[in-house]
């Protein structure tokens, strides 16, 4: 099944990433992202880019944007261009098609995130080059590295799975894009409002306890908790999307 998902993923990249924008457009677009986020901003920030805690994972929205560039096309594009039925009539299993589509967005966005992260480290080290650079290589602490690599992956899976579910239920790419954009616009403020609302109704003692915990936080337990919660949500969403991806129902949509 993984071999089949790989085949779907490669087709998706070739069709959507490289042919969708044209080869030059794709290389230009991705190159620009690496230049801006991997070179220009880190060069301007200097060592702060590495020494300020959590600076790296403030780009959490980067994989979100990259996923959105690809994922709307995954099923809505196949439906719009009348290729979905042929794909469903092939020997590919439901799981292989679904995982291939999600993986196409995840591997692309997460790969770009890692590339940008490595480029930014190189840029900062080069920009503050010392006489003996190898003895003073600037690296993130393990918390930031974990944030970029592990949480970046889990967050990308989260975005990709939601995107694929929206695309599954959309008739056209335009509709899928619109739904994703609207969802994004509404979702983030809604989460912020919900958290603020929950916080405001908590007893004063609990509020103080929370504030104290944030100020004296231990990165290990916090990262472990976030990782566990994200893994759980990802698994739940993958299960939900597999329930939505049923050949019989797709033919009727």
């Amino acid at each position, binding site marked *: 099944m993984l*071999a*089949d998902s790989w*085949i779907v993923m490669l*087709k998706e990249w*070739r*069709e959507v990433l490289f*042919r*969708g924008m044209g080869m030059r457009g794709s290389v230009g677009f991705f190159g620009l992202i690496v230049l801006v986020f991997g070179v220009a901003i880190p060069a301007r920030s200097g060592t702060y880019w590495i020494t300020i805690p959590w600076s790296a994972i403030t780009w959490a929205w980067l994989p979100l944007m990259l996923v959105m560039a690809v994922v709307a096309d995954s099923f809505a594009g196949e439906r719009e*261009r*009348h*290729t979905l*039925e*042929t*794909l*469903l*009539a*092939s*020997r*590919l*299993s439901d799981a292989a098609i679904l995982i291939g589509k999600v993986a196409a967005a995840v591997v692309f966005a997460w790969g770009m995130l890692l590339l940008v992260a490595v480029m930014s480290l190189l840029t900062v080290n080069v920009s503050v080059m010392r006489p003996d650079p190898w003895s003073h290589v600037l690296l993130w602490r393990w918390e930031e590295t974990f944030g970029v690599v592990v949480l970046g992956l889990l967050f990308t899976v989260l975005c990709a799975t939601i995107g694929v579910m929206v695309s599954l239920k959309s008739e056209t790419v335009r509709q899928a894009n619109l739904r994703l954009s609207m969802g994004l616009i509404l979702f983030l403020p809604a989460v912020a409002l919900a958290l603020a609302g929950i916080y405001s109704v908590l007893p004063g003692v609990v509020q103080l306890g929370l504030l104290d915990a944030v100020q004296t936080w231990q990165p290990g337990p916090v990262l472990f908790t976030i990782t566990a919660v994200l893994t759980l949500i990802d698994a739940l969403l993958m299960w939900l999307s597999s329930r939505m991806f049923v*050949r*019989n129902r797709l*033919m*009727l949509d």
Partner: protein
Amino acid sequence: MPSLAIRTDGLSRDFATVRAVDSLSLEVPVGTVFGFLGPNGSGKTTTIRLLLGLLAPTGGDIEVLGHDIRTGAPAIRAASGALMEHSGLYERLSAWENLEFFARVWHIPKPERETRIKELLESIGLWERRGELVGTWSRGMKQKLAVLRTLLHRPRLVFLDEPTAGLDPIAAAVLRDDLLRLVAEEGLTVFLTTHNLAEAERLCSLVGVVRRGRLIAYGHPDEIRVAAAGNHLEVSGRGFTPGMLSCLRARSDVVGADVINGRLCIELAPGGSTPPIVAFVVGAGGEIEEVRRAADSLEDAFLNIVGEAERDAG
């Protein structure tokens, strides 16, 4: 190996209050080119989707290539090729990339994959254009490529849903010739739906006529033609006078009689037979060269069958 490629028994499929396929029972032997004919909305495409396991039946049984659809749909799809209503080609990919993707989907090993794609593209004269994006091609070329895609993995059964629809007569004829040759070379079973009755007559060794999801005729095209022609007689010769026609029309075993293009055309009443009519015509001074039960074209037969079914339905 089963002798039947497809067997359905009382197959039905409902969409809300509409019954798209109604108690369909048919058998398609292995190695047959089967034509599934019917007006628009008669359930042809739905039947293909049911046979491929893309839709679940509301009732009845389906067995394709020896597999029950409820448990063996993946095995059926793995051993079949399908050209559905649309070509299903990726227009932003080249012809080569399209075929290569599907060859990989069907796990054709790399060396064989390249040989097979080359062999198929050369067989229809598209090898030189393999690098062009499919989106830039004419509809006829896309249909040819889509047919090749269905044959790529050497399936045992191929479903072709109106493969020549929307093509001009020349492109359709070329595609038909290519299809006939490829089918003969590959030796497979074909389930073909088409509106083009001449095409069905040319390609199919077995046809089924479906109307509102019900099978209303089934057999070899010649059998269907003869059955639909029913009680029509065509008499070649001379001396078919107006008086003879009047007497013929007055007979209880004749529904109608007329001279068309010098031939005496007689429609017999149910149960009417040929010898008394021949004796009457000879007795009335007619000179007969040939008498035969009129065999219409498959298209006429189709129109008769469907028209009759419409009348019966009220």
